């Protein structure tokens, strides 16, 4: 199948409006690992013939890392620029694979005049499964032990705990929870601008601590729903030399793999 990525400005020029804008995010656009998640999610959108578009070069960082690091100026510059673009095209609905983009677009843009229906891809995929539009082939993951690492910006920040789990359960795999999950989940160590700097002095890196907790249930797969968690836990698994036996995989990739997209 030939996969397409419609760009919003081109669609609009042709007089078309997409049902949903896929917000790719900086990690999804530039980070090699996260790019594979973007690709997987795009394939799903294509296969289901969803009328979507991306902003392409008109998308800028939401500003989340700057705001949380304390630099409101940089945040405001990016946010206002994005809102101008989105409002200009009359965007109504946005789906994103990044919980940080999701949180900022959904909770913080309205104060600046950016009002959209924003969904994270975990919720989006869950809805597609529930509506019967997305059928997931059992098989690939049958009998495999999958554990899920809660992203702080999805879980505690926005109370989304069930959607990613529902997506994993559709795989016919064995979802095992670790002790510190859901509201008690430990951060991967990336939030609040930490992704871009060294840890402060301490005994241990946070991602190592979290990876150890996740490995306690001996999973075959650690499922994630955030590009930053993905990087952090992947590093953690490498640090324990377990990269051959434990895969760190985004929920969109799980679906794409199960359905051999």
């Amino acid at each position, binding site marked *: 199948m030939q996969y397409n990525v419609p760009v919003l400005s081109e669609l609009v020029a042709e007089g078309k409006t997409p049902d949903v804008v896929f917000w790719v995010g900086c990690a999804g656009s530039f980070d090699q690992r996260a*790019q*594979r998640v973007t690709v997987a999610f795009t394939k799903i959108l294509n296969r289901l013939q969803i009328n979507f578009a991306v902003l392409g070069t008109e998308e800028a960082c939401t500003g989340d890392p700057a705001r949380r690091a304390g630099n409101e100026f940089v945040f405001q510059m990016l946010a206002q620029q994005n809102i101008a673009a989105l409002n200009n095209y009359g965007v109504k609905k946005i789906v994103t694979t990044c919980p940080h983009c999701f949180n900022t677009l959904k909770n913080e843009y309205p104060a600046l005049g950016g009002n959209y229906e924003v969904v994270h891809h975990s919720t989006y995929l869950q809805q597609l499964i529930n509506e019967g539009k997305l059928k997931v082939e059992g098989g690939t993951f049958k009998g495999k032990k999958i554990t899920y690492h809660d992203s702080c910006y999805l879980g505690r*920040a926005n109370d989304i705990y069930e959607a990613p789990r529902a997506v994993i359960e559709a795989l016919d795999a064995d979802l095992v929870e670790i002790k510190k999950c859901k509201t008690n989940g430990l951060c991967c160590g990336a939030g609040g601008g930490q992704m871009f700097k060294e840890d*402060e002095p301490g005994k241990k890196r946070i991602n190592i601590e979290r990876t150890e907790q996740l490995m306690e249930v001996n999973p075959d797969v650690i499922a994630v729903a955030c590009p930053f968690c993905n990087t952090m836990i992947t590093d953690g698994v490498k640090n324990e030399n377990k990269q051959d036996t434990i895969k760190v995989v985004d929920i969109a990739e799980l679906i794409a793999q199960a359905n051999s997209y």
Partner: protein
Amino acid sequence: MSFLTIIQILLFITLVGASFFVAFRKFKEIYDNINMGKPEQIDTTLGFRLKSMFLIAFGQKKMFKLTFATQIELIEIFIDGLTGKHRILYHAFEGSFLESLYVFVINFIEILSLLTFIVTIIFILRRTTFKVARFQMPELKGWPWRDALNILAFELTLITFIFMMNSGDSALHMKEHGEGYGFILSGFLGNMISSFPNGLLHFIEKTGWWGHLCMVMVFLVYLPYSKHLHILLAFPNTFFTRPEPKGEMRNMTAIEHEVKSMLDPSFVVPATDGEIKFGAKDVYDLSWKSLLDAYSCTECGRCTAACPANQTGKKLSPRKIMMDTRDRMEDISKGKKEHGPDFADNRNLLGDYVTKEELRACTTCNACVEECPVNISPLNIILELRRNMIMDEADSPAEWNTIFANMENNQAPWQFSPDDRLKWTEELN
């Protein structure tokens, strides 16, 4: 009314009046301290507020039962004290259905008191002997530590007095009427001492009564100085719970307008914005809600136990952030008392109390906010201080300066050209 009774009543009124006066002064000071903060609008309906308060403050069920039962008891002590009589409520209720209700309440208090007595001893052991990690952190050295033990000691003394009072009284009642009031525990104790001479029983009973009253008053005066203030402040604090999702950071309107005027020269910055404040350097720059948070903190340390930075050995402890904020307010109000209302020292919450290393360590994961039993947000204070550290003091780690520059120039935290935003599509087919 005998001379002795009048003396007793006068003594009672003086004691209670003085205690209330002293306690009120301190409460007023705390109220003023909280008002040092900046205004913050909390947009919630009365229904939401009451719901938050009932869910959280009364959700600590133990506390609710305790408050209810002790109130009935305190009312009696007050009426007794003002009239110089004893067991006023019992005698008033005697014979009616209220009598059994009264006996039930006293039994309830006694059983709860016994349980509290046992639990208090366990708490003391937990803090001194078993060394539970949450209670051993550096920020608890000194006053907080003594404070916690003082309260536990108060509780033991108070309960001892309650039992002295009730058993002495029960023993006397038994002697007079051939049977007790029907109090299970003190009836049992009273039975054991019923062979004591009446004078001694009266002495035990009176000592218990006055001791009990004194402990309550001491507690009232001590309370505003203690971390146990949270027992009261939990109510207003949960009443004013912020409604936003935990992930949302408050907009800085002045900076929004400033940037807007940069992007669009025709935009006029409203005069009402005033001078731009970069987050918080000191308690004056925090919202009153954050200051109320600081006074409501129980120092239980659940936040710190859940904090990923703290768990991995970093300096950050959200509990310490709350304690530092309160200490700063107390230091300012002490300074004002000594040197007048214009008092200023060259100190700030940022730097002199909370270090930058602590602020840099936070991942904004909201674990502390989630854990707090009384809806406190240490994260809010951390982020306001961080804003000041970065924008006012321009003191940010080199790696952050790099991402700020990249975001400004390339619209992404990494140094990639914005034109390459669609490069990933090459891997699609």
